């Protein structure tokens, strides 16, 4: 058990930054540049871990513990998500609720830490984060209900696992809606481009990055790592739904999973290169569309079940 947990963490910690590297590389290639190394996120993390923290005047303990809480929350969520043929160390009926709750807890501390600095820019970002979270959480829950209904069980591993009854042939259209909705939620939750720009600080339209303005050194590394792992988690939820291919060889399954993850990262990179960040007051419409999609998927599922 403990070994499984440690291996799960080890796996995530080692592979998750690579995906961010893939996104950056795809973006660079599309715009005709060579781009940074695929391993750049690792170098960034190492650099940040070796720096000391600087705190601003007047911050309290909430600010100081929030990076640890955020990273711990992501590591906890990891334990409930299966990675390809690597089974989730902890799985039980209703673990989806725990996932959402732990993500909410990390959000609470991130917002509280941003407000703790008392600066208006951080307040701005925190306010937007709280707002968009309301919409994306509802969309996420819609997706989870639809998946629960499709798989007839309440644990994430049961929905995504090897004996997954999710099949594109039977319930393709409903699943299509859910996947599209989850993809939008993933972009929003991870602050990727149509919603938020992960690369800018100095813009009044940012959400996630502005909340991290006052974090530095190891704290920033924790936050950065947490964001990377969060992307990995959402990918690991999405990929098995899109590619429900299961062979009897664990090695091939892992390869499929890894290919799927890299493909997803490349897709995100393509989306980011082909779209501009949409205007802030349109973000809520995007999230509402995600909600409507998931809702539609749920209706179709129910319809199929009712007939």
């Amino acid at each position, binding site marked *: 058990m403990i070994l499984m947990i440690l291996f799960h963490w080890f796996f995530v910690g080692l592979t998750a930054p690579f995906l961010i590297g893939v996104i950056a590389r795809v973006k660079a290639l599309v715009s005709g540049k060579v781009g940074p190394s695929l391993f750049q996120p690792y170098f960034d993390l190492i650099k940040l871990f070796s720096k000391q923290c600087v705190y601003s005047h007047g911050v309290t303990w909430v600010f100081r513990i929030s990076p640890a809480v955020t990273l711990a929350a992501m590591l906890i969520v990891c334990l409930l998500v299966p990675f390809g043929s690597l089974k989730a160390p902890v799985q039980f009926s209703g673990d989806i609720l725990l996932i959402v709750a732990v993500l909410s807890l990390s959000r609470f501390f991130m917002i509280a830490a941003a407000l703790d600095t008392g600066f208006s820019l951080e307040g701005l970002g925190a306010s937007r984060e709280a707002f968009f979270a309301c919409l994306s959480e509802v969309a996420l829950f819609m997706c989870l209900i639809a998946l629960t209904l499709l798989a007839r069980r309440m644990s994430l591993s049961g929905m995504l696992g090897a004996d997954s009854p999710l099949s*594109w*042939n039977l319930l*393709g*259209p409903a699943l*299509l*809606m859910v996947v599209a909705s989850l993809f939008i939620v993933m972009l929003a939750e991870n602050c990727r481009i149509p919603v938020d720009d992960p690369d800018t600080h100095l813009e009044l339209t940012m959400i996630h990055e502005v909340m991290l303005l006052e974090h530095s050194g190891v704290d920033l590394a924790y936050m950065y790592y947490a964001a990377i792992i969060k992307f990995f988690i959402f990918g690991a939820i999405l990929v098995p739904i899109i590619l429900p291919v299961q062979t009897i060889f664990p090695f091939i399954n892992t390869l499929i999973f890894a290919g799927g993850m890299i493909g997803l990262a490349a897709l995100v990179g393509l989306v980011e290169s082909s779209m501009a960040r949409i205007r802030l007051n*349109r973000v*809520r*419409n995007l999230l*509402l*569309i995600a*909600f*409507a*999609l998931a*809702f*539609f998927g749920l*209706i*179709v599922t*129910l*319809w*199929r079940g*009712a*007939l």
Partner: protein
Amino acid sequence: MTTWIDAGCILIVFFALIILATSRIVGMIRIFVLQSCVLSLMPLFLHAEAVSARDVMLSLGTVSLKAALVPFVLFWAIRRISMRTEVKPLIGVGASIVCGALLIAGAFWVSLALRIPGRPVTDLGLPCALATVLLGFMIMVTRTRAVTQVIGYLVIENGIFLFAVSLFDAMPTLIEMGILLDIFVAVFIMAIVLNNINEEFEHDPGGESRAKMGETF
């Protein structure tokens, strides 16, 4: 094959929802083109095992009319009267999306009670057609521009077309062609009317009425 038909039905409803959620007229027309393209593929998919010449003809007719000619006329009308391209909704886009989602749910709820004689190819045809019609109505009711009214009307028509195609195998080609011709005439007349409004207003020296041009019929 059913999966593809289902996906087609759902995409048509989804595009109707997106038209509702779009705040620019040009965007609305483009998505309408997409919707029509999906729609024109439906006859082919529905009779995939034995595609008849009639299906191909219907498909080609739909695509050339709805995905090419009608949008062309609409774009021409927009350019011709050079009006602003915001949609001007009566209720906000966010609220429209939520209402649209509820309308879809309503369409499915109603279809639960409706029993269509015969055995349709897909059980999603009826609710999806109904939902598209309702969303088209919603576009017509809540969007104030003249062109948006036309788009709403076209979406309704797409819904009816989906209904006909997916439910009735033996619908006479003549009627289908007649419907297509009707739409074309309607859009054409609308374009002429818009154009005439435009010319009327061009004699008007004051800028005030010009600003309101094309907002309603």
